[in-house]
């Protein structure tokens, strides 16, 4: 009850922002998580999510040092995230055999660059906030950008649903039908990268990948097709986020970590029930 009161409280806006962020991020977790999971590129999404820290670090450094004046760190992070996604996408398409090595290297290099630049930023920011999230950092700008991203992703998914479904089911056949599979693949990675930048304040870079896969894992036990998988994983994602927020509020624990642990426990239970049947 206390939690619900705080949502409407004029004084403590971060709880309200966290609830709104839960709702807005659930849409991204549901749509992108479903696509990434069925296309089996959760590993790539993981690499992007970690490499994105490099962009965040550089953007913070440039912004705080006023090297590029009026340069909001989030915009810089998005630009770097898009570049990272394009590089990883091209490597994945062109260098199939060496893909693992190169992508894992980018994963580590990206994170390291991020840590170095964050350490050299004058108003030193704790990298833990970016890695594991901090609901205190959710700003109105974050919510606005999440909202815009939701609209863009919903529209793209509606418009290209059949193409996305075809690519995730049988890429070769999709190519025969004239679908630009590489373009959609790169676009998907760009959307993943931007979403990760926007979502990292909520659950953190390390945990984004968990929220992109766990709700989908639970939803897959009840889904008949990709659209029901998207809808159900969005709902599960929202439920996990709200329950995680409430538990973290009551026990005074980091929200992002609690959300992922709660989601993980439900996934294990759902898997056990499925196995028993």
């Amino acid at each position, binding site marked *: 009850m206390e939690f619900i009161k705080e949502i409407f409280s004029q004084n403590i806006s971060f709880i309200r922002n966290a609830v709104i962020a839960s709702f807005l991020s659930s849409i991204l977790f549901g749509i992108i998580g479903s696509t990434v999971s069925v296309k089996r590129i959760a590993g790539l999404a993981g690499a992007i999510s970690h490499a994105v820290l490099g962009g965040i670090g550089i953007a913070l450094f440039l912004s705080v040092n006023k090297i590029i004046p009026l340069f909001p760190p989030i915009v810089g992070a998005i630009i770097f995230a898009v570049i990272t996604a394009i590089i990883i996408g091209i490597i994945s398409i062109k260098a199939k055999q060496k893909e693992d090595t190169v992508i894992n290297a980018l994963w580590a290099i990206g994170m390291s660059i991020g840590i170095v630049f964050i350490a050299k930023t004058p108003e030193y920011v704790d990298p833990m906030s970016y890695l594991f999230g901090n609901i205190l950092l959710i700003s109105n700008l974050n919510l606005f950008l999440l909202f815009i991203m939701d609209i863009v992703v919903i529209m793209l998914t509606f418009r290209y649903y*059949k193409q996305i479904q075809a690519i995730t089911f049988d890429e070769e056949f999709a190519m025969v039908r004239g679908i630009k599979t590489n373009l959609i693949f790169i676009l998907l990675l760009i959307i993943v990268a931007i979403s990760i930048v926007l979502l990292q304040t909520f659950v953190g870079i390390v945990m984004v990948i968990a929220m992109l896969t766990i709700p989908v894992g639970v939803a897959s036990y009840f*889904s008949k097709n990709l659209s029901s998988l998207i809808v159900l994983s969005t709902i599960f994602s929202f439920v996990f986020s709200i329950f995680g927020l409430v538990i973290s509020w009551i026990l005074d624990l980091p929200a992002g970590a609690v959300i992922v642990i709660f989601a993980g426990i439900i996934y294990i239970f759902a898997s056990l029930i499925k196995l028993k049947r």
Partner: protein
Amino acid sequence: MEHKIAIEFNNVSFSYDNIELLKNISFHIHENEFVSLIGPNGAGKTTILKLMLGLLIPESGEIKIFGNNPKNKNNLIGYVPQNLHFENKMPITVHEVVEMGLIDGMSFFKKEKYKEKVEESLELMDIKDLKIRQYNELSGGEKRRVLVARALVSKPKILILDEPTTNMDQASEERLFYVLESLKKSTTIVVVTHDTEFVSGLTDVVLCTGKESEKSHKIIRHNVEIFNGNKKVLRVLHNTELPENCCCKKEEKWNS
């Protein structure tokens, strides 16, 4: 009667990782012919199909599908792949899989517009009762039927099947034979198969892929005749091997 050329390879070469697989191969397939592409494992049969489909680009030479580049021909070709590498746990219904055969590039897909065509194709492959079932829950034979229905739903002018009888049960094989028989003479059909008995009663022409040298492969086109013994079997007429880049003059003989 003059038949148009449906598929044409002119001096096509192709390599995988610098290993020359096809070197200067030339052949063509006429409209509405039933062609069996046979040869030992690794002879390049699937590569030839992928070149026809525009999934692979030749290093040199030219491929034409009804006189045009294999790209931009999505509604001309129906394709049944061999490898079920895409068989993941993705939730998808049989109806949705068949719908995929009607996707036109990046255009918006209007589900309602194609409902009737999908129903027809399901009916043709006798899998109407499976339409709301999950693709993953089907047997091997049922899955193959669904993939054939997906290839046929756009009523393609060319149907390409890669080892279509793999994992097929007797009933599914019989259904596929019936469907191919009904399409013969109105659709150009190319089948890659080890199961020559399956297509023996339908084949007009055999394309043999084989090693020309240690490195590359070539294709030889053979006519066939239906030999009526106890049952219909295919007989490859090696003595009527045709020169490359020709054959139209002997066309009547093929159809006799």
